[in-house]
């Protein structure tokens, strides 16, 4: 019986380590790439000396440095505001001490890294924590004031936005579905659509100034192929599915880089200039 208890305790401990043993993580997870998320680094979980790193030891022996921990990150890209120099961190990378040796930084990942959702989910986040002067306390001989390298996998959240794409990454010859939630529509002229009211302006963008719309805004509702079908059982939900390479007439030699879209209803035109274009990048080549 004692043996069984020992084995059970060991299994329980293993499970606990798996659940709570991450030194770097993001919340919320799964993550909506377009929303804010908070990146946490728990230096309590850090292991000194795995990569000449001694930040945990330095923070424990020099509590006066506890509020000078910076994020240093290089994947999915360098941060848009810049890491700064190793010996002179950029202020935008200063982390907040939550409590003890737990640090956080709140970011909007796509803006923070200047990448697409695909690049974020595909690569994850590579980072470490460091003191402003990464070589501080080096004379103590136990390593640099940095953590080991962390790799954080980013799990995409189910889309709950006004527009959702399925799949979240697509090639030009994939089936691509656009789902529109009219109940979240901010434009009062487009709210409360009936089952036959929902149309979409679609254009294939092949360059900075080159795009190929199926129809101009004023003619969209005359094109049945641009009508979204209501989703059975989902109030205000509409969907259209296309294969971009077959749907758009793009001259040979040009490549569709993104899809431009916005919703239209019969009898309604956006006043003045066209609305701010929404883009879905076709960056899976």
């Amino acid at each position, binding site marked *: 019986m*004692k*043996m069984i208890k*020992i084995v059970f305790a060991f299994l329980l401990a293993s499970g606990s380590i798996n659940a709570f043993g991450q030194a770097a993580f993001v919340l919320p997870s*799964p993550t909506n790439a377009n929303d804010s998320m908070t990146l946490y680094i728990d230096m309590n979980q850090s292991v000194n000396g795995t990569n000449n790193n001694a930040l945990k030891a330095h923070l424990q022996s020099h509590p006066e440095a506890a509020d000078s921990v910076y994020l240093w990150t290089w994947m999915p890209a360098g941060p848009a505001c810049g890491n700064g120099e190793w010996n002179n961190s950029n202020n935008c990378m200063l982390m907040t001490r939550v409590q003890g040796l737990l640090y956080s930084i709140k970011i909007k990942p796509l803006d923070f890294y200047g990448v697409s959702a*695909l690049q974020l*989910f*595909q690569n994850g986040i590579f980072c470490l924590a460091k003191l402003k002067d990464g070589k501080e306390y080096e004379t103590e001989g136990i390593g640099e004031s940095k953590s080991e390298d962390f790799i954080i996998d980013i*799990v*995409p*959240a*189910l889309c709950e936005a006004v527009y959702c794409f*399925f*799949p*979240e*990454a*697509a*090639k030009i*010859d*994939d*089936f691509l*579905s656009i789902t529109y939630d009219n109940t979240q529509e901010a434009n009062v002229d487009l709210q409360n659509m009936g089952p036959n009211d929902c149309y979409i302006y679609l254009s294939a963008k092949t360059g900075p100034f080159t795009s190929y719309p199926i129809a101009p805004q004023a003619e969209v509702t005359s094109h049945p192929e641009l009508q979204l079908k209501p989703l059975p059982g989902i109030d205000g939900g509409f969907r259209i*599915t296309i*294969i971009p390479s*077959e749907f758009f007439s793009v001259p040979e030699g040009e490549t569709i880089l993104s899809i431009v879209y916005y919703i239209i209803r019969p009898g309604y035109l956006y006043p003045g200039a066209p609305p701010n274009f929404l883009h879905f990048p076709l960056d*899976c*080549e």
Partner: protein
Amino acid sequence: MINKYFTKIIVFISAVVLINSCKPNIEGEIGASRDVFSGMAGEWELTQFIQQDPNNPILEERDLSEFYIVDGIEPMKLNLNATDFTYTVDITQGRNFFGNEGTWGVDNVDAPSHLLLYGTDTLSLNLSSMIFPYSTNMSLEYNRACSDGFKHAIYKFKFKRAE
């Protein structure tokens, strides 16, 4: 106490091994190996087409059969010839991911897990199960990936053996 249980376990395992080794040798032939190709050969008619996003937290699937199966129009057919190992695709509705024709094979003749289509491109399609001559259904999965290997979509083709 621990040593007591450990000793018992060792004695038990030893006993099992000893008893097992006393079994008589198997005699006789196990028969000819299964002919994978004759099981897969023939005409297969598409009955369902599903798209899955492998990056979706719940691995959401959507049934897009309506793009392939329309009343009054012959559904897509895949014809696998086991004599010359050619294949043809007859399709009037829906996107043809397989190419019109080419040759075919499998990754492992003893235990195939992938159907290989050598058409305009070479496609490796996951076989969901072994296909025997009496099998009436065949499911193929086409994993789509970006040029850097990132898997972004899975297409699931479900066929029935055409009559």
